[in-house]
């Protein structure tokens, strides 16, 4: 544990440089542009429009975060002693304050009278972003692709476009504030967030678990310490 702490301290600077800041920054800037659009056009504050622009902004930011786990040096840095989970956690920890600031700025761009309930919309944004990160983690876990970001972003965007069209009425996630299904929808959003966190956590370990099976198969006495 001490070693891990020492490594993570030394790692922070280097890992900060491996974060794909351009993609994250692009997502953040375009997201703010989306949510600030009515202000720029001097339009009347519209709660429905504000809600959906905030959703759109969260999606755009999530698309930028879909690149967060891209690692061009993945192949070279796989068999090292510092676990990938630690490196991934560091990247997320470095981006988390940026994401929090960004979301605060996005909310601030929406006039107060048009702003949806903060807790509920923040839950939606958190679920969207976590879903993108879980998809990126899944891509890293299941493929050898060092930079799955573009594919993950495309998958997240497609899912986001199809979900409102394909979800049954009773399971709808994208409901307006005055809809009687608002609370139920946010219970479902909480479920989405929990599911995404679980998937993400499950994707943490590098694919070495199967090795346990080998203990049964190892020929007795086939291997030993050198010279044994």
């Amino acid at each position: 544990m001490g070693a891990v702490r020492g490594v993570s301290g030394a790692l922070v600077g280097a890992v900060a440089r491996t974060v794909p800041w351009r993609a994250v920054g692009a997502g953040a800037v375009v997201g703010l542009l989306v949510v600030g659009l009515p202000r720029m056009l001097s339009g009347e504050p519209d709660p429905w429009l504000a809600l959906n622009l905030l959703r759109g902004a969260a999606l755009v930011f999530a698309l930028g975060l879909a690149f967060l786990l891209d690692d061009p040096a993945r192949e070279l840095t796989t068999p090292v002693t510092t676990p990938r989970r630690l490196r991934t956690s560091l990247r997320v920890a470095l981006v988390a304050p940026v994401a929090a600031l960004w979301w605060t700025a996005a909310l601030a761009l929406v006039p107060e009278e048009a702003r949806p309930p903060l807790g509920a919309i923040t839950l939606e944004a958190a679920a969207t972003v976590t879903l993108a990160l879980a998809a990126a983690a899944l891509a890293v876990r299941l493929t050898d692709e060092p930079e799955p970001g573009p594919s993950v972003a495309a998958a997240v965007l497609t899912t986001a476009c199809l979900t409102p069209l394909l979800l049954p009425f009773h399971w709808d996630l994208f409901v307006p504030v005055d809809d009687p299904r608002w609370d139920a929808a946010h219970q479902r959003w909480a479920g989405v967030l929990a599911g995404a966190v679980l998937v993400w956590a499950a994707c943490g370990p590098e694919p070495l678990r199967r090795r346990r099976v080998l203990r049964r198969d190892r020929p007795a006495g086939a291997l030993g310490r050198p010279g044994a």
Partner: protein
Amino acid sequence: MIPTVSASGLSLRYGGTRALDDVSLRLTPGVTGLLGPNGAGKTTLLRVLATAVPADRGAFTVLGHDPSTSRGRQEVRRALGYLPQSPGFHPDFTAFEFVDYVAILKELTDRTARHREVRRVLEEVDLGDVRGRRIKKLSGGMRQRVALAAALVGDPGFLVLDEPTVGLDPEQRMRFRELIAHAGEGRTVLLSTHQTEDVAMLCHRVLVMAAGTIRFDGTPAELTERAAGRVWSSTERAPGAKAGWRTGTGTFRNVGDPPPGADLLEPTLEDGYLLTLDGAGAEVAA
């Protein structure tokens, strides 16, 4: 000699393809060459030994450490330097920063000692003068040397090199050959390559893989010996030859079963390799 790496019955399937099929081997200090056609399972074997991917069956140890346990895997990784077939880089890093990053990942936490080690390996691969240059501005050969430096950092006892000379020009390849020979002094190097001349010049031992199995395990001289009496020249392409090509002198060099009275030639390692792949000798020689 005490083996650095000892593997037994390694098998791995990718879908319906048997990438490794009951591979057993022992590696000792020095450079061991791994030859084989594309799809033979060379990279898979290297990735398994580098703990980048687990085998479905079988086991191995590196310097006595068993990677099937978490602690053993860490120990194996501490003893390991790995240069993959297509090493990727963070292009905005300088050569120094990248190798330093890998050094941190290898738990070299003391800044002063780590920087000294990074400078040492960059000097070793002859990149000391360009260590401050961004990787995206380096040539292909220089990038490959950065990757080798990253593999060498921490002075690992077992070095896994997957086709390190692919895509390099002849001069760069010669330079790389020197580096590998130097790296093989006092440590165990497993070198996967398509270049039989690399094996002939560098390796004390050679493995030939095909279809996920080891077809030959012996010295380069023994592999060459397999073609003794089976290489001949002729004025026409010999119909019974397993392989034959017109040389610069206009005569044909044939490999296979020569006709009586054929003008036999001195075999090369490549001839032995071709005949081994052809199934002429599937048994393990050593």
